Structures are given as C-alpha cells and as structure tokens.
C-alpha cells in the first residue's frame, strides 16, 4: 500500500488542512486555485474603477466638482473603442487618481466620489 502510506505521511507533515462543508470538518488537501481565490468585496459605487485595461484619453471633471448620476467623468480607450465612463451616483469628486494619457489596469481606481 505504497500510496496509502504516502497519505499517512502527508497527514503527519501537516499537508492536510480542514475544509468545512455543512458543519462537517474534512481533512483534505486544498488546491492552489482554491487557496488563491480572491476574497469577495462588495461593490463600492463611490469608487470608479476601470472595467477594462486601457488608456485614459480625456477627463471631464475636476476635484470638488459636484456631479449627478449619468454625468460624464472620463474617456477610457480600450480595444480600439472609446468608452465614456459615467458617474453611477450623485456626489462630489473627491480625488482623481489618473492623468490624461495614462495607461490603467483592470479594476484600478480612477476617481473617488464623496
């Protein structure tokens, strides 16, 4: 039972973690993919993030400016398309963390609203 002995050895080495399914703790190995999964964060509508990586080609607002839901905030060019990013909520511009011409990665915060 070479393989089973390996399992016993792994148990001793502490390779095994516990996984809770319906109140039962199972001893098992966790996959890399499972361990690498990102924790969930609820969406914050006051933080405008890049939904796609690309380049900021135009910024329409300045700090402290009041905006309404639907107002233009900036242009994000990606995949040869200009995407106009609109404000999802009413608010005031707290911070603009990008410049025109800047390349941005996905999920990067572009503008924060108050």
């Amino acid at each position, binding site marked *: *039972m*070479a*393989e*089973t002995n*390996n*399992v016993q050895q792994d*148990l001793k080495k502490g390779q*095994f973690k516990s*996984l*809770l*399914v*319906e*109140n*039962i*703790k*199972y*001893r*098992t*190995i*966790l*996959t*890399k*993919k*499972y361990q690498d*999964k*990102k924790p*969930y964060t609820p969406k914050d509508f006051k933080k405008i993030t890049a939904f796609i*990586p*690309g380049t900021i080609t135009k910024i329409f607002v300045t700090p402290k400016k009041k905006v309404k839901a639907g107002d233009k905030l900036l242009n994000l060019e*990606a*995949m040869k398309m200009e995407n106009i990013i609109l404000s999802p909520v009413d608010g005031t511009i707290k911070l603009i963390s990008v410049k025109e011409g800047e*390349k941005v*990665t*996905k999920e990067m915060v572009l503008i924060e609203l108050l």
Partner: protein
Amino acid sequence: MGLKQKTADLKKRMREAVKGGGSKAIEKQKAIGKKTARERILSILDPKSFHEYDLFVEHAGRDFDMDKKYLPGDGVITGTGTISGYPVCIYAQDFTVAGGSLGWAHAKKIIKIMDHAMKLKIPIIGINDSGGARIQEGVNALAGYGEIFYRNTQASGVIPQISVILGPCAGGAVYSPALTDFVFVVENVSKMFITGPEVIKTVLGEDISMEELGGARVHAEITGNAHFFAESEEECFDQIKHLISFIPWNNDKKAEPFPKKPPKARKYNIDEVIPADPRQPYDVRDIIKSLCDDSEFLEIQELFAANIIIGFARMAGQTVGFVANQPLVLAGVLDVDSSDKAARFIRYCDSFNIPLVTLVDLPGYLPGIEQEHAGVIRHGAKVLYAYSEATVPKITVIMRKAYGGGYIAMCSTHLRADFVCAWPTAEIAVMGPEGAANIIFRNEIKAAENPDEMRKQKIKEYKSKFANPYVAAAYGFVDAVIEAKETRNFIVHALDVSSLKVEVAPKKKHGIPPF
C-alpha cells in the same frame, strides 16, 4: 526520359520535399529541444507504417511575391499509419517551413486528411506547431481555419480526435484543439493562447512570459484545456499510444478487448484504503487500482480539478471510464471545475460506447461566494445532464458519503444508473449528520439545559438511524449492499449482463446542455 530516369527524378523530388525548411531551420528547431514534424509522426506510428499524402502540394500564395517562394509540403505533413496495429490518420505542422504558418494549401491538406478519417471511420491525430495564420494569404488563411473547425465539430463524437501541442498554437488556431477530444501538452514546448504576451504588453501594459500565460502547466493545471501533461515529447508519444489502446476506432465500435487480468491485489488491497471516519482522506486512485485489470489506470486531467478523478481502465478485458470523487483533494467536493471535468468525460464515454463506473464519496458541492458567482449552478448541472443523457451501461458504487445534491449527481439510480451498489460504510442521506441534526432538532437543542450536549446526542441519534446504506436500500434506491471486496465481481457481472443494453432517448435534434 526512360523509366530509370523518371524514377530517379521522383526520388530527387521526394528528397527535396522531405527536407522541410532545410538544415538551418531544423537546427533551430532542435536547439530548443523540439523534434521535427516528420520525426514526431514516425515516433508515434508503428515502424514503417506511415504513408504520406500530398507531399508535392504547393502553396497558394499569390501576393507579396509569395508566388516566387517554394514551401515544401506547404508546412504540414499528412498521412495514415498504425499505432500498435490500430489505424489512424495523422498530420503534423512543420515549424521549419514558414513557421508552420497556415495558408490555404496547408489547410486543404489538413481538411483532406480529416475527411479521409471521417470516411474511414478511424481516429485523427493533429500535431500543432505553427506561428498561426499566414498573413500574406489574408482571408484565405481564415477560410482554412474555419473549414477545419467545422470538420472538428462534425467529427466530434464520431471519430476520436486527438490534438498534440508541440510548439506555439496561438490565436484562432487554438480553437481546433479546443474542439477535439483530447489535448496533449509538453512542458516548455507547448504554448497556447488567444492573444500573446506582446499584444497583452502593448494593449494592456501587463507583463507576462509565454510560459506563464499559456504554457503546458497552465493548461494542465489552471485552465483545464489540456488533458495529458508530459515532461518530454517521448513521454507525450507514449501517453498517446496508451490512450489509443483504450478507445474504439469510432462511435459504431466498442474498444478492442484485452486479455483479462486480475488487479495487483498485494499492492492495492481494497479493504485497507478507506478510513472508517468519513472525515478522513484517502487516495481514491488506490480504490480504482484495486478494482481494475492489472491495476492499470490511465488518468485524464490529472492536475486539473484534482478533487475528481477521471480516466480509463479495463474490467475483465473491457475498457471502462472511471469517475470518482477524490477525498484527498478539497474533500472530493463537486465544484465548477470538477463538474466540467466529469461531465465532459461522461459525454465522451457515452459517445464512444464506453461503460461508466462511478465511485461515490463526497460531502456535496463546494460552498462559497466565489463558487456561486462562478456559476456552480450552471456548471454543476452539467453532471446531471451528462449522466442522465448517457445510455452506456452505468454502474455506481457508493463507498462512503453520498449527501444531498452530490448523491443525486453522482450517477444515482434516479439518473438511470443501471446498477447501484453500496458498501456497509456508505452514508446516503439528505445531508451530513451534523447539519441535519442542527435543523431537525433545532427546537430541542435550543430548549435543552445543555445545548451542546443535546446537539451531540441528536447527531449521534441521526447518525445511527440515517448515516448508513439501509434507508436507501429499503426504498430500492440502492440495488445491493455489498462488502468492498465483492466490488470487482459486482462490476464485472454488471458489464457482462449489460452488453446488449439498449436505451432509446426521446427523438430530438439535440439537447441544450448547460454549457
């Protein structure tokens, strides 16, 4: 010219053509540890069995001075041959000729050998090693890919289709392997992606190496695009030969039977593998090896979604497909990836008349936000769909836990398993005792002076009443409760009596599986 001169002329033409891209290009190919296209074909096929077609085909490029160029065989070698005596059609892209790029004539050679495989009803093996579309041929290169994809789809479920990635396979080219049954990759050699690192860098500013983006390990472990991972081309060729021995030539046939052999009982003793405590892990591959002929198990997608095990083995000489929960990894849960992996394999076995043996020991579906948002409903449904749809003999062995939705999904009698047996260690219940007792006896536990004591007592009660195979057996949902060591006999007998099984599905064009 007399006959002699004409023969000499033919030989000269052949010598020129088989040179491929010439000695410099071949040297380059070798320097990075790759074999040439011709060497690859000859290593996979039986000695002297290769018969080449279309050696003298010339490329179809007319623009950008391409008409002045000679591209031997237009960068792809095609033909027929045998593997351990089994007939196959085969093609190999030749990277030494114009980077193995695909032009119209190159595509036409592949199309021709694919059509040939369909007519002859034998497997097709495609070796991919190509820089992609030959840009100079423009839309003709795209047409070539399209014609190949269409044929891949038509051939799907009719003849086995095997893709071997031995070099770059990028852009649209990746979709031919993706449409085939089995994809083989080799560490440091195979590269598959839709957009390469350079495009990602310029468009998105993200830095990643080819290997990290779409290397062999990525596809074997993370994406699940690859089914077999090898460390060298030689190992890869052995894997192909091994696979071919297990599968039938086409969907009208059964896999070729082998002489019966008992399992290696001394090494794999079925009574010693499973811990009695259902929370403790073990390697379910040891169970498979304790059941199958000669303990010979060909695992598929070993590194991807390792919480479920799939692969081929033989029972009394006949090929079967094993699907088994793996308690060693993630407690053997069903999740997005393991559901995809199992469902596709079940459909493969069903298409090619390979009986299914399912070994059950799972706590249920993996809980979590990430799983729910990744669509575990839609993906999990694939397992139900695939098992329900399959009409090959279906044999289920419930070894330990079979809780809730997991019980139903793992080829229960309700999804029309033909034979279901359970071991005395089986626990077939709507959920695990801990969860169930908490819900059913909620009020008693709350009202008790010592709730923890009461909970423990109620869990114990529930366990002794329901955590066994006899409740399900009493309803006839389990056909037999058997000792573990009787399992091989049970499976072999089930296969014997179901060799004439006929099940007719309702007439339809095709179903709509939850892709």
